[in-house]
């Protein structure tokens, strides 16, 4: 029992610890941040030990080695966030609260991943959403921040409404809400399809799949950078994991339906995401749309509906965490120093900050899927998994979308490396932990691909 729920318990413990420390007052931000980072690191390391599989609460909660791995990937992501945004954390006076919220959201995701029952799933989903809305509002004095939070909370409330309606219909149609029993009762009647579409929409909303993606860009832009990265990496990852297991296990009988649905939406997502990303000036917004396009790719992998699909998606999420966090880390470094967050502000960055530029370049190449960065392998395996179903039209579109995405990633590269600039961003001082974080990300981007045993481990 204890070891089965280990990750959840650890996170809860950390939350309470933070709570007491906070109540205890008298601790400076720096040391507090250090403490948190240490705790998270320990949490991450602990993720590798005492992993036991099992089912609790009459199937409401389940844990397998794969699930543990997924949770640990998220742990890693959170740890990296705590490193990368240190400068921002140190400045904000409510830092512990932010972490409490983030960790409770993480807790929610953990439950989400190992939920074995629609009720549990719903609760976990809400738990992983509502705190994020609060986090989005964390720049209390910024208008955009509150607007973002407002958009987030309202749309997510709406989507959870839809989700619940779907669940209720499923309940009505099958009389059960437990994942283990549902497959027997599903046979693709119109009512069930309707219910499934409602459910799917909720997933799509969280994963920001077209046409349920519209909140994404605004929220990403308005929210503080830490929140944005959390949203774009961690919560996406979590939802992708549960999405896969739901589709593969629960809605197995309706695979014909959801395969087509996934395919259509994936194409739409890639195209729309790319087309919007082409025009963006604001880095956060740019990354928002690029991440939408990335989700399109994830869907390609998901569409395979087989074991490869799962492993390739997990692998990609891991890589995606490194790449995207690296990009956000660089962006936040620039932003916290100069307050600029536009692509044009990066012009001539290379002249003054080679380190940041190279990390950014690595991250973007990885996102674009250029070897030898890990992104290449991630994308390739997604495509391969997708191709296993044999619809080459789909794969060709995906492959061609890589070109468009390359175009806008190169836009940034060009701004950083090629464009002349009279007064480029002055030399940026990055504090140790941020540097550490960036280095970890860079190392991850390079190594995760080349060291094939990582992929085997995931498998």
């Amino acid at each position, binding site marked *: 029992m204890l070891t089965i729920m280990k990750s959840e318990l650890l996170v809860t413990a950390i939350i309470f610890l933070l709570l007491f420390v906070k109540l205890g007052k008298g601790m400076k931000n720096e040391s507090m941040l250090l403490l948190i980072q240490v705790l998270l690191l320990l949490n991450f390391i602990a993720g590798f030990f005492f992993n036991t599989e099992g089912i609790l609460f009459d199937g409401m909660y389940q844990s397998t080695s794969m699930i543990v791995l997924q949770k640990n990937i998220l742990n890693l992501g959170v740890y990296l966030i705590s490193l990368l945004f240190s400068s921002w954390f140190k400045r904000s006076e409510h830092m512990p609260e932010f972490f409490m919220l983030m960790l409770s959201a993480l807790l929610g995701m953990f439950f989400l991943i190992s939920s074995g029952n629609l009720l549990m799933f719903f609760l976990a989903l809400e738990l992983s959403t509502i705190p994020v809305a609060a986090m989005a509002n964390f720049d209390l004095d910024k208008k955009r921040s509150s607007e973002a939070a*407002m958009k987030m909370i309202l749309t997510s409330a709406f989507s959870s409404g839809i989700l619940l309606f779907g*669940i209720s219909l499923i309940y009505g149609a099958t009389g059960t809400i437990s994942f283990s029993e549902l497959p027997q009762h599903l046979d693709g009647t119109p009512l069930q399809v309707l219910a499934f579409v409602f459910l799917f929409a909720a997933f799509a909303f969280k994963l920001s799949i077209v046409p349920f993606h519209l909140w994404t860009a605004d929220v990403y*832009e308005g929210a503080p950078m830490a929140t944005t990265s959390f949203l774009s990496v961690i919560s996406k990852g979590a939802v992708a994991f549960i999405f896969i297991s739901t589709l593969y296990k629960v809605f197995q009988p309706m695979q014909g339906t959801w395969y087509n649905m996934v395919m259509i939406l994936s194409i739409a997502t890639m195209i729309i995401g790319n087309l919007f990303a082409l025009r963006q000036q604001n880095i956060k917004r740019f990354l928002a749309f690029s991440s939408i396009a990335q989700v399109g790719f994830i869907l390609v992998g998901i569409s395979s509906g087989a074991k490869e699909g799962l492993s390739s998606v997990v692998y990609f999420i891991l890589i995606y965490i490194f790449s995207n966090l690296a990009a956000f880390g660089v962006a936040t470094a620039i932003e916290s120093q100069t307050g600029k967050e536009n692509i044009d502000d990066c012009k001539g960055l290379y002249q003054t900050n080679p380190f940041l530029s190279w990390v950014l370049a690595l991250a973007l190449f990885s996102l674009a899927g250029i070897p030898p960065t890990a992104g290449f392998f991630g994308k390739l395996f997604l495509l391969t998994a997708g191709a296993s179903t044999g619809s080459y039209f789909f794969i060709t579109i995906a492959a061609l979308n890589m070109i468009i995405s390359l175009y806008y990633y190169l836009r940034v590269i060009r701004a950083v490396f090629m464009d002349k600039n009279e007064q480029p961003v002055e030399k940026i001082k990055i504090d140790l932990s941020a540097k550490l974080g960036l280095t970890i990300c860079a190392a991850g981007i390079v190594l995760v691909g080349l060291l094939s045993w990582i992929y085997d481990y995931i498998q």
Partner: protein
Amino acid sequence: MIEPGLYHLLFISAALFFIGVYGFFTRRNLVTMLMSVELILNSVNLNFIAFNKYLWPNKLDGVFFTIFIIAIAAAEAAVAIAIIINLYRSHHSIDVENAEEMKF
């Protein structure tokens, strides 16, 4: 005076759902929009109860689900209100159309 059947209830809940949706689409006041969401949730509750009572009377999943939904709705509302208040601070209005700074 006839005994209300499943379909009556489902009809009501569907009506509630769409009223809620309509309200959410058309209302400009954030709090009202929040209320419309509550309507949607309530229609869901009605669904669960009805299904539970008429289709699967021997299991209580639906009822429990309803209870949890109510609880969660409260939590959601709390955070939402907080955010709206904050929005009021910064925008000096809770009109949704004043918060359209970020677009395209």
